[in-house]
């Protein structure tokens, strides 16, 4: 029995390790080669960047000679501000939807999560006209507003489901203590939703940081370019400078990785906390 169990456990690890290699190999290839000389990149793509083959020139040219730091800042601004708005406004709306009864509450609840099923990209044609008429074309504000609108439905869905499963007693006792409804939200509800914040954050963040569609359409201008769009254009221009291309790819990977590591512990806990139901 025990031997049998050990064999099956070895088998499971073998499968999982095999898939890990498949998932990691392409990334490792890029990061390794980004530290190599052009010659080494071509002569020995899978070799380690050691001794003569090591070179950080790619990073030099990306970080000094290009607008990469600018794109990077743009992406960071757009992602962080959108994320804060999605989390804050989403939690506020979900709190109201799960806590108070008012005329039209069911309808409003359905209306606000409609966007999960109807992708906002379908409105692109009119959205561009709207953004242009508001004078927001080629601004980061346009992207922030659109991403906030795009992220709210899933955030409201997850927060509302979660808040409905939380007992009302804590809020009621806070009310007896004389806390205003606003203070109840900030001092009681916000700490309560903490377990699902990571889930909402990760699911909202990925499509924002990685989006190509809206930056391409709403803000393709040099000043408001995001990393994703910037890398896309950069690759087109500098296909000769492979070191720089590989370095720019590696740098573009970094922030999401950091944010993911920060959130990943809570991610699964949040999903299992009854947040996502079929």
């Amino acid at each position, binding site marked *: 029995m025990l031997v049998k169990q050990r064999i099956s*456990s070895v088998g499971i690890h073998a*499968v*999982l390790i095999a*898939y890990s290699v*498949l*998932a*990691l190999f*392409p*990334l490792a290839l890029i990061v390794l080669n980004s530290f190599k000389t052009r010659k080494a990149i071509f002569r020995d*793509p*899978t070799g380690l960047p050691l001794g003569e083959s090591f070179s950080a020139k790619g990073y030099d040219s990306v970080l000094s000679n290009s607008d990469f730091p600018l794109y990077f800042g743009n992406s960071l601004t757009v992602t962080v501000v959108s994320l804060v708005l999605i989390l804050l*406004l989403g939690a*506020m709306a979900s709190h109201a939807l799960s806590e108070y009864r*008012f005329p039209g509450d069911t309808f*409003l609840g359905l*209306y*606000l999560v*409609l966007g999960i*099923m109807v*992708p*906002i*990209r*379908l*409105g*692109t*044609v*009119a*959205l561009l*006209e*709207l953004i242009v008429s508001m004078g927001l074309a080629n601004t980061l504000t346009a992207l922030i*507003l659109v991403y*906030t*609108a*795009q992220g709210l439905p899933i955030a409201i869905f997850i927060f509302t489901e979660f808040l409905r499963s939380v007992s009302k007693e804590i809020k009621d006792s806070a009310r007896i203590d004389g806390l*205003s409804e*606003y203070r109840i*939200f900030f001092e009681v509800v916000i700490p309560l939703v903490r377990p699902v914040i990571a889930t909402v954050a990760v699911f909202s963040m*990925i*499509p924002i*940081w*990685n*989006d*190509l*569609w809206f930056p391409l359409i709403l803000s393709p201008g040099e000043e408001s370019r995001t*990393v*994703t*769009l910037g*890398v*896309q254009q950069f690759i087109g221009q500098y296909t000769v400078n492979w070191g720089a291309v590989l370095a720019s*790819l590696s740098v573009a990977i970094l922030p*999401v*990785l950091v944010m*993911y590591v920060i959130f*990943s512990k809570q991610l*699964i806990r949040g*999903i*299992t906390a009854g947040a*996502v*139901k*079929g």
Partner: protein
Amino acid sequence: MANTGSVSSEQTHRRPVRWYILVFLAPATLIYTIFAIYPIIESLRLSLYEAGDGGGVFVGLANYARLFGEPLWADQFWNAFKNNIVLFLMHMLIQNPIALALAALLSVPTLKGAATYRTIFFLPTLLSVVVVGFIWQLILSPLWGVSPAFMNWLGIGSFFKPWLGLESSALITVTLISIWQYVGIPLMLFYAALLNVPEETIEAARIDGLNGWWIFWKVKLPLILPTLGLVGILTYIGNFTASFDLIYTLQGGLAGPDYSTDVMGTFLFRTFFGFQAQLGDVYMGATVASALFFIILIGVGLYLFGVQRRLQRYDS
């Protein structure tokens, strides 16, 4: 504005108007309505117009008649639609079963290192499609030679072809890259659902003499059917809209070779903005987007009234 209202309601002694409800709901509702719902409705309206002097002229369903009637448009539309269906089916038949299998293995209670595996499997999902697209372009490129060398090492070097460049294999290759990237999302959803299966239910099945394999098929799988349904509809929606990014990155706006990887997203992009010789057309763009809206609506309708309702009957 709403804030001052709340102050005044505290000062008067009538039954207080609950301004705070408005304060909590208004910002989200406004941003969502203006930047998500209004553009979609406005796009549906624009699809009934065409360019005229100084603005749109109402033409009823003429744009749709053009889209489905004129071969120039209809051929592109159905080609993109067909490719989207291939993309969808491949994700359903390859991506989601792989995700389910990996999630099932990860949820084995005695497994060590589950958190590390989980992080690794989710990593590609975090990457920008631009990064993913370029990585695979490099790996599959005959120029750089990583894959030919690797295949030679396996002894199957003679089978190497520039898959992304061939009409017959480009769509499948793009789809496999997309699967490589996005397998993490259904994986996470399945994994969370599997963790939620109550321990007592599994224990009871074990006492009945079922082994791990049968517990998965007979006990766990029926319990996570709602998640399967959810993953199915998310795959359907994502395949019609999100697939643009990867294909635009890998194959360009013309979704080559010879439109063999064209999907609704790239078709919409070309129609709206124009590409090379083709001029952009706002009204036809709105028409393509609206057609896509109805395609998604049909899928969501089938899911809500068919799949989900049936699944919930098994849901205890």
